[in-house]
C-alpha cells in the first residue's frame, strides 16, 4: 500500500509540475486523451504483469499488437465476404491465445528462457504482419463507426478504453489477489521449487500467464487499430513491450518475480503516458521522449531500492531491540 501511495505521489508530482508551466495540461480534452491512451497501454501492461510475476518477460507484446492491429482491418475490409465483427475479434483473440500457449509450452516443457522465446516471437509476428499485409497501410476507412466507438468513443465523457481498462483491471485484481490461482502465481514467482513441492502445477500456471499476456496484447492491438484507423504493419506497436515493462516496473513489479499489483501497474502506465503528454505540451523536443522516460524509470527504481533498504535496516534495528522476545 505504501508503495502504491509512493508511485501515486510521483504521478501527481509530474502532473503538478506540468500544470504549473502549462495550465492547459488540465483541460478536459487533454485529460481525456491521456485516459484513453492509458486505457489501451494499460490493458497491454496488465498482461505483461502476469508474466513478470512468474519471473518471466514477454518481449513479443508489441509484435502481437502489430499483428492483431494489422489483421483486424484486413479481416473486416479486405476479406470476401467481409468477416462478421464478432468472428474477426474471436479469431484474433484465439490466435493471440495460441501464441501465448506456444510461448508457455516452450518455456515450461522445453525449459527455454522466456527472454529468448518471446524475442523470437517479436521478430516472427512482426514479419508475419508485414508479409500478410504486403506492408500496406491498413484502416477501416469510414466504416465500422460503431466498432471504433470501443476505442475512440466515450461514455459519460469517460473514454471507452479507460472503462475497458477498469473492467479488465478489476477482473485481473480479483484473479491475482482473491483466487487460488493468484496465490499459486505469486508463490511460484517467488520460489518455483517450493511451489512445485507444495503440489502446485507450476507449469500450467506459467502457461496461463503467457496466454493472458498475449490475449491482452492482442485485444489492445485491436483497440489501437480502431483508434488510429491507419495502421503501418512495420511499425504498429513497436517498442510497446518496453512501455509495458516500464509501466509494470514503475508500478512496483519486481523483474525477479513474485510481486506486483494491478493498481500500481495502472498508475505506472499513467505516469509514462503523462510524461509523454508533458513532453508534447511543454514543447520539449519530442526526440527526447525516450530519454525522459528512461531517466524517470531509473529514478523510480533507484528510489524504490533506497526505500526498501532503509525500511529493512529499520526493521533490523527494531528486531534487534526486541529480538529476545520474538525469536525463541
Amino acid at each position, binding site marked *: 500500500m505504501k508503495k502504491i501511495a509512493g508511485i501515486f505521489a510521483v504521478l501527481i508530482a509530474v502532473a503538478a509540475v506540468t500544470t504549473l508551466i502549462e495550465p492547459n495540461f488540465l483541460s478536459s480534452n487533454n485529460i481525456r486523451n491521456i485516459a484513453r491512451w492509458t486505457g489501451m497501454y494499460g490493458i497491454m501492461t496488465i498482461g505483461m504483469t502476469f508474466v513478470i510475476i512468474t519471473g518471466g518477460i514477454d518481449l513479443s507484446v508489441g509484435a502481437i499488437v502489430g499483428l492483431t492491429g494489422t489483421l483486424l482491418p484486413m479481416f473486416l475490409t479486405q476479406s470476401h465476404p467481409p468477416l462478421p465483427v464478432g468472428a474477426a475479434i474471436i479469431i484474433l483473440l484465439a490466435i493471440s491465445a495460441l501464441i501465448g500457449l506456444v510461448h508457455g509450452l516452450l518455456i515450461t516443457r522445453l525449459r527455454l528462457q522466456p527472454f529468448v522465446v518471446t524475442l523470437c516471437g517479436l521478430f516472427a509476428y512482426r514479419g508475419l504482419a508485414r508479409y500478410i499485409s504486403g506492408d500496406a497501410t491498413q484502416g477501416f476507412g469510414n466504416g465500422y463507426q460503431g466498432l471504433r466507438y470501443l476505442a475512440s468513443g466515450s461514455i459519460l465523457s469517460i473514454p471507452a478504453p479507460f472503462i475497458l481498462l477498469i473492467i479488465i483491471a478489476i477482473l485481473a485484481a480479483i484473479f491475482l489477489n482473491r*483466487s487460488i*490461482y493468484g496465490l499459486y502465481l505469486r*508463490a511460484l514467482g517467488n520460489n518455483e521449487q*517450493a*511451489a512445485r513441492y507444495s503440489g502446485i502445477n507450476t507449469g500450467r500456471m506459467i502457461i496461463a500467464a503467457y496466454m493472458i499476456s498475449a490475449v491482452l496484447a492482442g485485444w489492445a492491438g485491436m483497440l489501437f487499430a480502431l483508434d488510429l484507423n491507419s495502421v503501418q504493419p512495420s511499425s504498429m506497436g513497436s517498442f510497446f513491450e518496453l512501455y509495458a515493462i516500464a509501466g509494470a516496473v514503475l508500478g512496483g513489479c519486481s523483474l525477479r518475480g513474485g510481486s506486483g499489483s494491478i493498481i500500481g501497474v495502472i498508475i505506472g502506465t499513467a505516469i509514462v503516458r503523462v510524461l509523454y503528454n508533458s513532453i508534447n505540451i511543454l514543447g520539449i523536443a519530442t526526440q527526447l521522449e525516450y530519454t525522459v522516460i528512461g531517466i524517470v524509470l531509473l529514478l523510480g527504481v533507484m528510489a524504490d531500492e533506497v526505500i526498501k533498504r532503509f525500511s529493512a535496516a529499520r526493521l533490523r534495528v527494531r528486531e534487534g531491540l526486541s529480538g529476545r522476545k520474538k525469536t525463541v
Partner: protein
Amino acid sequence: MEPSVAKLQNNAQPIMEVSGISKRFPGVVALDKVKLKLYPTEILAVIGENGAGKSTLMKILGGIISPDNGSILLNGREAVLVSSAAATRAGIALIHQELNLAENLTVAENVFLGREFRRGGLPGLIDQGRIYRETGKILHRLAAPFSENTLVGQLSIGQRQLVEIARALAINSRILILDEPTSSLSRPETVRLFAVLRELRAAGVSIIYVSHRLGEVEEIADRVLVLRDGCNSGELQAGEINRKQMVKLMVGRDVQQFYHHRNHTTDKVVLEVEGLVTRQGRQKINFKVRAGEIVGLAGLVGSGRTRLARTLFGIDKPNAGAIRIAGKRVTINCPREAVAAGMALVPEDRKLQGLILEMTVEENIVLAAIRQYQIFKLIHRRRKRAAARQMIDRLRIRTPGPDQQTQYLSGGNQQKVVLSKWLCLKPMVLILDEPTRGVDVLAKEEIYRLMEEMTREGIAVLMISSEMQEVLAVADRVLVMHEGGIAGELAGNQLTEESIMSLATGSRA
C-alpha cells in the same frame, strides 16, 4: 601399513600441527579444541559421523572459514590462513566434495585458472603454449586418461577429480586435503585415485583424506584421526586400523534420552514400497510403513536417503518399482500427484524447497490446502485466516501474526510453518527430510511431540535424519541405507548407535 612410513613419523617433525582449534556457529559448537598432526609423506584419514566436524575442520585448513581459537603451525611456524588464497600460498590445496571447475574451459585452462602464465607485451595476454605444456607434464605424471585439450564438461566425476589434483600439483602444494573424494566415484575410479595418491605420497606430498567409507580408509590410510561431536575422539596407528576400532571411536558416547517417545504403530500398512530402484541406485528397495508408525531412515550423507524421499514424492523418476498407499497402487510423476495420493514432504532445504520466504506465514500455511478454503476458485478469506490461526496456535508458531513474512521467523518456527502446510491437508504419509536441521533444542522437542501427535492420528511417518540421538529417540523402527540400497532394518533391542553405524558403513555382511 608400510613400516618405512611409520618409522619416518617417529623422528620427523610434523609438516602441519593444529592445536586447540575451536569453531562455534549460531547454536552449535562445531569444533572444540581439536588437534591434528600431519607428518611428511603420509596419508592421514579423518573420519567421524555426519556432523562430527570433519568438513568444518577441513574448511579451516583450506582457509575458507576462520577458527575462533587455536593455532596452525606449518613446518613449525605459525600460519594464519585468512583466505583460500592464503592457504594456497602456504602450500595447502583443498579439494571439495563438490568440484569447482569451469565446464566450458579445457583441462589446461582449468588447471591454471586464476594463475595463468603471462606473456610480455600487451597486458592480459596468456602464454597459452606454456599452460598447455605444463598441464601435459602433470597429467602424464598422474597417468590421466585424457589430454590437456579436453573440455572439462566432457570428463567423468573421477576424471574431474584428477583435474583438481593437477591444479594442486601445478602450484606445488605440499599438503593435499581431499574431502569425501570417492563419494561419487565408481570402484575402478576409486582404485585409480588411490594409485595416484600413493604415487603422490612417494613424491613427498602429505595427504589428508576425509571419508566415511571405512573400507577405503582401511585400504589407503597410514594413520586415522577420529572426530566425534567436534572433539578428538582418538587416533589409530598403522596396524590398529580396522573397522571395529573405527566404529567404536566414532560412536561410543552416552546416549541421553532427552525425549520420551510413545509408540502408536497400528497393523494397517499405509505406505508400501516394492522393488523401487532410484535413479542413482542399483539395488531394489522394499519396505512398509504402518499407520501411526515412525520409521527412521538412517545412513551416511550420500547413501541415497534424500534420493529415496525425492523419488517417493515424484521429484525424481524411479527406474523401476511400485508404490502402494493404503493398499492402492499409485503412479506418481510429480509432487502434485504425490500430494493427491496422500503424501507430504518436508524437504531437506527448508528455505529453498519448503517455504516461500517472501510470503506471509498465513499464505505459506494454506498454500498446499488452499482448495479447502475456496468458493468457485475464490479464496474464502475468513476460513483461510481461521485455518492459519488454528495452526499457529496448535504448533505454537512464534510469530507477531499471520501476516508476518516467513523469512523473519526463526529456523524452528519456519519448520513448524512447513509442517502446518501439510497438516492442513491431513496426509496419510508424511516424509520428513532432516526435520530438525538448524533448529534449536526447544523447537526440536516441540517438533518431536508434534510428530507423535500425528502418529496418534494414524499418519505414517518416514523420517530421514543424520542425528543418531534423534533417530534413536523418535523412530519406532529404523531402516539403514548404504550405497543407494537398504542395508538392514533395526528395531527394539537391536536399535543401537553401533548397529546403525556398522550397517551404514557397510560392515555387516
